[in-house]
């Protein structure tokens, strides 16, 4: 089977074209570094099926970060390269095109973003470019699918370039300049009001106000949409569902099956948070407490991503993140991490050095709770008053900054500066936003819910064999003497390794004071990542890196937990 590889600069529409070619949806966003890993799919060529690989974007075949290394490596697998080129930025894109063609792989060039080039008054002589490059060139619009059929049609004509021979770097630059000059004409464009507004979002003072407004709006939107979904969709559904489970409960009668499926009844009623049955808590927690916020969060994130605002936020945040050993792009793992720590950990690949990635990944695991956990924190602590929720997040923020300042000093290695392209603002495409939100929500349902079920099952089983009581007894000294928590909280911490959202729920039956809950919830965030994140971190940081990160986490958890205890409860 042949392999078609999509190569191109970051943010030129490779993933969009990949989706078009394969019918497999992948995440696309309006900033460099969305695709940090390879996606594989299949398509049909005249001579049979072919594999398609969506490589991370790269500016050249001499990589400067791991995402680019992946791209350079993938090129070796290619039978045909589809070089996706940003038609609005031909000159810059051609360097990689030449480097690729010099390798002698059969190639086709997709001149993507053809619609935007038109709007910007950029005209490109396609036939001329084709002659100069010696491979087929097809204008495409990845977003609408225009030109994709022709692109596929011409994959058969892919061949090693007849005109481009290996050359030195200086020659390559000269060739880029010569080709651009010959095929491209640009109508002069004046600065518009929109340009000036766009610039305001990247200037220090106006930018800061815009950033605060955007973040506040995003937060309120998530809350508002999440609460709306709960009040108008999910709670009514569970109101319909309750009589059914109650009936099932009666039918089952007391016994082990009742324990596992329905769980404990409180005064003859189901308590959806505390009952701990698969059909009660196992459904209610993921669907009525977490999913609504996941939907809301990913909708808002998708919009933020597609407008192109995030790289501007990264620019504004650079001054701050630089002091923590990263640079402004370190805000991307934070943003993604709030959704789920797994993509957050993967996103650390946009940072160049090991030191930066270690710091970004460690800080995220320490202090960035995922949406599922946040939803539960609001659910569990919210009723006591918003100030307790604020205490948790304020503590985590302090931990993030303090740990960052320290790690920046003690971790050896380099901290390269920020260097990134600001994409043009784009109006998010409704369909694309909806699809992306759905993909991520489906990912949550597919990955989180089995774990939640498994977690509940395991808790029930371990309780019945008495293991959890034993565990609580063993950890009682640390829990009680150091953290001021009931011994049972140790069980929640253990379960937290499986699913932190479930663990937060398990704190409820312990009847703790709100102060104790603040401590327990904060500890749950800091002490260790959940198993899914742990696996990714292990792969990204290596065993030694992970060991070091885990050391930081456990130390921080004990220190912060002890400090909170002294402040909130006293001795």
């Amino acid at each position, binding site marked *: 089977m042949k392999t078609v590889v999509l190569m191109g600069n970051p943010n030129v529409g490779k993933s969009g074209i990949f989706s078009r070619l394969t019918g497999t949806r992948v995440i696309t966003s309006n900033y460099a570094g969305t695709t940090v890993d390879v996606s594989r799919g299949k398509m049909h060529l005249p001579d049979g099926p072919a594999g398609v690989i969506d490589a991370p974007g790269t500016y050249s075949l001499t990589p400067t970060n791991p995402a680019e290394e992946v791209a350079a490596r993938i090129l070796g697998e290619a039978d045909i390269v589809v070089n996706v080129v940003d038609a609005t930025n031909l000159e810059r894109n051609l360097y990689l095109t030449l480097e690729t063609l010099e390798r002698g792989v059969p190639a086709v060039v997709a001149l993507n973003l053809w619609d935007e080039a038109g709007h910007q008054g950029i005209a490109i002589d396609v036939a001329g470019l084709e002659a100069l490059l010696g491979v087929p060139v097809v204008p495409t619009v990845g977003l609408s699918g225009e030109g994709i059929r022709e692109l596929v049609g011409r994959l058969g004509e892919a061949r090693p370039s007849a005109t481009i021979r290996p050359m030195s770097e200086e020659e390559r630059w000269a060739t880029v300049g010569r080709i651009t000059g010959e095929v491209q004409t640009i109508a002069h464009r004046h600065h518009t009001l929109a340009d000036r507004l766009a*610039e305001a979002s990247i200037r220090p003072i106006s930018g800061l106000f815009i950033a605060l407004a955007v973040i506040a709006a995003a937060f309120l939107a998530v809350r508002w949409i999440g609460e709306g979904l709960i009040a108008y969709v999910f709670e009514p559904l569970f109101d319909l569902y309750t009589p059914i489970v109650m009936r099932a409960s009666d039918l089952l009668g007391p016994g082990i099956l009742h324990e596992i499926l329905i769980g404990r009844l409180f005064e003859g009623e189901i308590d959806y948070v505390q009952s701990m049955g698969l059909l009660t808590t196992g459904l209610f927690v993921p669907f009525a407490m977490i999913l609504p916020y996941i939907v809301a969060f990913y909708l808002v994130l998708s919009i933020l991503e597609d407008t192109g605002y995030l790289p501007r936020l990264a*620019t504004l945040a650079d001054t701050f993140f630089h002091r923590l050993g990263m640079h402004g792009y370190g805000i991307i793992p934070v943003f993604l991490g709030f959704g789920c720590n797994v993509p957050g950990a993967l996103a650390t690949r946009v940072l160049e050095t090991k030191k930066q990635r270690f710091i970004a990944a460690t800080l995220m695991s320490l202090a960035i709770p995922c949406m599922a956990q946040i939803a539960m924190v609001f659910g569990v602590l919210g009723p006591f008053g918003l100030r307790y929720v604020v205490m948790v997040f304020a503590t985590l923020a302090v931990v993030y900054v303090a740990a960052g300042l320290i790690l920046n000093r003690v971790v050896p290695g380099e901290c390269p500066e920020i260097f990134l392209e600001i994409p043009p603002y784009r109006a998010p495409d409704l369909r694309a936003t909806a699809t992306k939100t759905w993909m991520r929500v489906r990912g949550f349902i597919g990955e989180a819910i089995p774990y939640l079920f498994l977690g509940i099952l395991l808790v029930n089983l371990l309780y019945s064999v008495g293991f959890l009581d034993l565990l609580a007894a063993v950890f009682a000294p640390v829990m009680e003497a150091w953290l001021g928590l009931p011994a049972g909280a140790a069980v929640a911490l253990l379960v937290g390794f499986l699913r932190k959202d479930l663990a937060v729920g398990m704190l409820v039956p312990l009847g703790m004071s709100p102060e104790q809950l603040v401590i327990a919830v904060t500890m749950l965030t800091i002490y260790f990542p959940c198993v899914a994140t742990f696996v990714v971190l292990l792969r990204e940081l290596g065993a030694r890196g992970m060991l070091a990160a885990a050391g930081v986490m456990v130390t921080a958890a004990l220190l912060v937990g002890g400090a909170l205890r002294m402040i909130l409860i006293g001795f």
Partner: protein
Amino acid sequence: MEKTLLELEPGTQGTIARFIGNPGFVRKLRTIGIREGKTLTVVTRHPLGGPVVIEVDGREVTLGRGMAGRVVVDVAE
């Protein structure tokens, strides 16, 4: 007159003259579109050691101060 990018006030325009640094550094700048002979406009310079934002060929690029200090720009008096 030649100045480093770091010395330019926001709003200044100039022509990129050369880069001070190893080939890897030069390639990094060139491949993102910052090349000798191009006209550059300083969009903004962030305070407290923050980054510099420039515009080249209608595209904005953010770069740290250390890098900005190694980009030599030819500006009219």
